[in-house]
């Protein structure tokens, strides 16, 4: 199967300090890949590079067959990002936020897409409320609606459960699983082994800027915790 996302030998320096050292990663459609690691392991930097928000110092990156380092503007159409920050304007309503993002993504049939996305994350009844009145869990649901509005084949999740209570995290986890169904590929970074591992098809453990190990079977919080402590 052709990989939707193909990162080869990605390296990143902050000043003289290497943060990523030759990370390679292929993700195909239908895969849900979790990148695990302690704080400072380089997870967020890697995800920002995959999202084309940060340029690597070395390596190659292809998304949907597009050279994302040479043509990042074209590759971005294939990407939806949910991070621990919502990227939502608090003084706009839920609908206005999605209208804005839909317009800059030049999404067709925008009104229908917005209604579908808001219904999917159970925010349609609150569509005309300013986002600043939303709870943290609701903001993250709105962030998912924003990320899937243009129907990207690649969904990138950067610590999406940060700051959520147990019920909101369970709700978000179900939404993410649903969003990951079908032809979409999902890459998620997390340091919380207790959340969001349902539906993960592959786990990578990042340590010291390198992929220390890869797990395809037995992806449980317990097994991963053991591997992380060994890595």
């Amino acid at each position, binding site marked *: 199967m052709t990989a939707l996302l193909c990162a080869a030998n990605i390296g990143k320096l902050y000043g003289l300090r290497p943060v990523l050292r030759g990370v390679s990663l292929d993700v195909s459609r239908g895969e849900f890949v979790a990148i695990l690691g302690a704080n400072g392991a380089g997870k967020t930097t890697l995800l920002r590079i995959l*999202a084309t928000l940060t*340029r690597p110092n070395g390596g190659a990156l292809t998304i949907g067959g597009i050279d994302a380092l040479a043509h990042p*503007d074209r590759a971005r159409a294939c990407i939806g*990002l949910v991070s621990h920050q919502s*990227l*939502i*304007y608090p003084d*706009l309503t839920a609908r206005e936020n999605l209208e804005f993002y839909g317009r800059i993504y030049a999404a067709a049939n925008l009104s229908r897409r917005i209604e579908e996305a808001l219904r999917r994350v159970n925010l349609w009844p609150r569509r005309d409320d300013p986002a600043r009145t939303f709870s943290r869990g609701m903001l993250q649901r709105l962030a998912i609606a924003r990320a899937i509005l243009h129907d990207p084949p690649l969904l990138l999740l950067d610590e999406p459960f940060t700051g959520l209570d147990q019920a909101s995290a369970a709700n978000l986890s179900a939404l993410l699983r649903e969003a990951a169904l079908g032809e979409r590929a999902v890459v998620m970074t997390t340091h919380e082994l207790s959340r969001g591992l349902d539906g993960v098809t592959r786990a990578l453990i990042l340590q010291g800027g390198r992929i220390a190990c890869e797990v395809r079977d037995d992806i449980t919080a317990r097994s991963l915790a053991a591997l992380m402590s060994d890595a």
Partner: protein
Amino acid sequence: MPTALRQIAAIVRKDVLLELRTRESTTAMVVFAVMAIVMFNFALRLRVDTFRPLTPGVLWVTLVFAGTLGLSRSMSSEQINQCMDGLLLAPCDRSIIFAGKAIANVIFTLAVALLVTPIMAILFDETLMQPGVGLVVLLGVIGYAGAGTLIATMAASTRAREVFLPILLFPLALPLLVAAVIATSGFLDRLPLGEFAAWIGVEIAFIVIFWTAGTLLFEYLVEG
């Protein structure tokens, strides 16, 4: 409409909508500008018989200082919830983001100029409401917003952004300020256009330089 223009329009519309809802930038700019003009009026009245030679300078210093407040706010609003990342994820050339933000800044600063200039015309008893002055203000605001958006983007990634913005922007804007003051004086003094047309040319050159620089450099300024 081409996609790029629709994307620019979306960014402008979003910034205008946010401003209409919060009125944070324009309120601060208008209040500051009116206070500055009133203070100039009282302070200068004590020492001069006529305001005529001072009016263009007071107008432009007021607009430049008030405009800085809006520019600072324009970029800091994108830091909330890391909304700048949302903009940077858009599948477009990043010069489009610069253009959208700069056009929104032109609109806000022009709105302030439209409110402040008549007040100044009354307080300083000058015929500021004339097409020539309007043209100079329009060109000056476009140039200042272009340079300001570029510098505000640079300053946004620093910790002391409120301090950095004026420190970096004012020296750069000096040629524009000088040109705008001389051109405004020319219209107020009813001089033949040929005597000061070159200064309007300087304003246009400033616009071309800084809007081109912004278009080319914005990507590098926001690169992580």
